């Protein structure tokens, strides 16, 4: 039973590893900002421009991040089930 907090900690860390979308971003996205200079800041809505790396590496735009999101969801569900069952056994 003492292993429960440890298990939670390890799995929670596991489901968050490499969790920065910027670290995992493909080169095209990160290179985008270098192709434009400061004179191109004015842009139409829906078009990328300079200094926009933060914007285009947000989870909603980071398609390379979505698989991890799905995996994290399943890990969290498994954790929830494990914690519920173990706490029930401890309570009985």
């Amino acid at each position, binding site marked *: 039973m003492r292993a429960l907090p440890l298990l939670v900690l390890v799995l929670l860390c596991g489901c968050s590893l490499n969790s920065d979308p910027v670290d995992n971003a493909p080169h095209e996205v990160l290179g985008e900002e270098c192709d434009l200079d400061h004179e191109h800041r004015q842009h139409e*809505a829906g078009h990328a421009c300079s200094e926009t790396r933060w914007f285009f590496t947000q989870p909603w735009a980071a398609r390379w991040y979505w698989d991890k999101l799905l995996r994290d969801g399943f890990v969290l569900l498994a954790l929830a089930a494990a914690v519920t069952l173990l706490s029930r056994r401890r309570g009985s």
Partner: protein
Amino acid sequence: MKGVLVFSVMTLRMLFRKRTPWGILIGVLLALFAIAQVPSFSVGNQGRFILDFGLFGIELGALVLALGLAANLFPQDREQRTVMPLVAVPLSRWQYLLGRFLGAAMVQASALLVSCAGLVVILLIRGIRVPGDILPATVLIVSEGWFLLATVFFFSFFTSPPLNWPLTTILFVLSQMSVRDFVGLAPSSPDLMRGLRLLLPHADVFHIKDPLAHGFDVAPQFFALAVFYGLCYTAFMLSLALAVFRGRDLK
């Protein structure tokens, strides 16, 4: 399961009779109205401003609603000694927790839906185009609200309400930060900060106001994934809350 539903409806009625959710809802609607009064250089800029700050205000409303609805529920039940007879005969502890959570979640979801509807009405009155993704964005904010609600329940089983408020607010703020921003809080010890960030949820997944305000289309798959992630984290926080609750001596 019938017991859970009956108890959640009882919780729903009890919370609707309180002034707290009504006060918070009126506060959020007034804030939205005030945001719409801020002058801007053009209609386009004003639309962005209203959407950006409006959705941010509703997100903050979700946090305040979670705290206002749930921080006092268990401590009050314990103080008034109603929790003992409840979990002794008609309900088990998980049924108590789930009933309370579902009741509060329904009240919170209703208030957030009304807030988002209020934002749409303000945009329409101002003659600003309403983004097509406003409905899925609302569902995402509701999902974030439920995650916060589960967090408040978790803290409420071992802290007092005055401590619950800052703890949940700190978790809300820190979990909104990206890994880089979080490491930036203490740049001298990046490994420690990265390690700490691993333990926090990724609430930046719920950031949806930026693409909406700037006219970007968000893929429906992302909405589905983000809502799924929010619901899974809610289930996880509830399981932790249940583990703490099961270990508590209620005498």
